[in-house]
């Protein structure tokens, strides 16, 4: 028995080691390359050039704003729908699951092509109508709402899985009934009892969505907007060292944002306990 356990531990360690090497070696090589000075020694020129490049802050800010709004829209859509299904219509749960999983089977390029087709639709004589003006407004380059719509669709399966897993761990029906029995109306029961117990699931859904939005390139590029991913692509082509620096920097930014979100979630939890 003891030898079996030690074999399992060894196997586990080996798998971790292989994975670690698989990820760490290219990363380390990239970092070394990005700070290697051809005249000898190290230099951070690629990074300083990158940070001072025009459009860096604008594109990063736009990406963060898009991520924030996408998370808000997604949670506002999904959380009430999933709660309503659990509390009032459990038979609808498989239907919701299928709907939320549909974006997984639609390639991003196909989705984007569809969006382009919709945005181009409309003869000139409709230009004064609210519909036409709405279509124009959602393409405002300073904050392209159309990207939020696309990102919500793309993130739907991941956010759904995260929230569904959280809901499976909580007896929502009993908690809501107990809260109502204690004098809380429907809304207060949800806000004071259910949502605090879904904190981890909400955070997971948000983290996945933010990761997806910060890294999404295809849709933004085809639609002609310049969030951070598109900016990285266009600014990393001029110089080999800078292109690697761009990759590392984008990874770091995504990690920092995700770590901050996790830290905020954990911080609130530990402060409570």
């Amino acid at each position, binding site marked *: 028995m003891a030898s079996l356990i030690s074999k399992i531990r060894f196997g586990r360690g080996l798998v971790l080691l292989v994975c670690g090497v698989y990820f760490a070696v290219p990363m380390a090589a990239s970092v070394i390359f990005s700070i290697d000075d051809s005249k000898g020694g190290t230099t951070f020129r690629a990074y300083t050039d990158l940070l001072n490049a025009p459009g860096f802050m604008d594109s990063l800010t736009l990406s963060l704003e898009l991520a924030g709004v996408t998370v808000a829209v997604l949670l506002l859509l999904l959380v009430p729908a999933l709660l309503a299904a659990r509390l009032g219509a459990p038979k609808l749960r498989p239907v919701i699951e299928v709907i939320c999983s549909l974006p997984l089977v639609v390639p991003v390029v196909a989705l984007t092509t569809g969006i382009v087709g919709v945005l181009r639709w409309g003869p000139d004589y409709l230009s004064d109508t609210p519909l036409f003006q709405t279509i124009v407004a959602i393409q405002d380059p300073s904050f392209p709402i159309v990207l939020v719509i696309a990102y919500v669709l793309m993130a739907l399966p991941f956010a759904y899985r995260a929230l569904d897993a959280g809901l499976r761990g*909580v*007896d929502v029906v*009993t*908690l809501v*009934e*107990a*809260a*109502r*029995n*204690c*004098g*809380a*109306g429907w809304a*207060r*029961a949800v806000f*004071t*009892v259910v949502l*605090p*117990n879904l*904190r981890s699931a909400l955070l997971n859904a948000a983290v996945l969505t933010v990761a997806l939005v910060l890294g999404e390139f295809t849709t933004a590029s085809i639609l002609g907007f310049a969030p951070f991913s598109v900016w990285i692509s266009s600014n990393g082509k001029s110089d080999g060292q800078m292109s690697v620096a761009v990759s590392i920097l984008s990874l770091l930014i995504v990690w920092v944002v995700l770590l901050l979100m996790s830290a905020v979630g954990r911080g609130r939890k530990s402060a*409570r*306990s």
Partner: protein
Amino acid sequence: MSTVTAPASGASVVTGGATVEFRSLRRRFGATTALDGLDLTVRPGELLALLGPSGCGKTTALRILAGFETHDSGEVLVDGEDITRIPAHKRDAGMVFQSYSLFPHLTALDNVAFGMRMRGTSKTERRNRAQELLELVGLPQRAGHYPHQMSGGQQQRVALARALALKPRVLLLDEPLSALDAKVRLSLREEIRRLQQELGITTLFVTHDQEEALSMADRVAVLRAGRLEQCSTPSELYARPATAFVAEFVGTMSRIPGERSGDGVEVLGRRHEVDGELPADGALDVLVRPENVGLVPTANGRALVVSASFLGSVTRLTVRLADGTEIKSDLPTEAAAALPVGSTAEVTLPERPVLVDRRVATA
């Protein structure tokens, strides 16, 4: 209603108890009838157990009273007021659920204080009162603990304190002990009964465990297929069941084929008097409790001992007659030692059987 102070802790809880009435209550779920015209009155300050097999409608009745379920027709009155149109959060009924229902993100103290927080009670007042209630249920030292840091029994005690925190007119207990182990279950049911008597709060207790119902309740209402079969004190229910269903559901009962003999019944060659009337027609069974059946060790007797179950001070013997009828008999363990499995005996029955019923065909 009046307010008293519970002597153990000083926590004031509204008592005096409300009257609860179910009138012709009906509820269907698709093709299933959960309640089929339930009529039942719970007296002020009493603990009434709703007892019955799964699907008999007992939980549905409780949930309709709590406001978590709607009804198709009928009325639910609390102190004469029809409460069926009042939303659940305004019903003034504290409930303890079957599954652990404490809010996982709140401490025991905050769980108990939750209802007061919803009502806008000041922080100091609700903390003081929550602390008093935790003392009342014997958990003052657990105030700062989260549900996952407490045992099942402790969680249900906190849930009880939470249910009492809003000084409800009615206390509803939906199988609160079913998830607990036997020992905790026993101590908690005594605790619930003590508190209920101390506070004098009208309490409805749903259970499918007859022992729990008989040991805790002032009266027990036995439900079957959405209808009330009998509502009596535990002793009356046990000794004088109104129907064969009640007789067999509450306690253990043996069915023995009998023959009509005037207005009595002849069983095992002896005539017995019967309380009440015999079924109008058809073959008869008499129903007797194991403690009323005697066995006399007899060589070549009519009854063969086929099994023995040690129950402590008594041992339950099962004997089989020549026609295949099985009869259970509780004998003092010492006396039962004289009747090992495989031995034979003569059966003696009480003067009056518990009930006489139409014969049930056996396989």
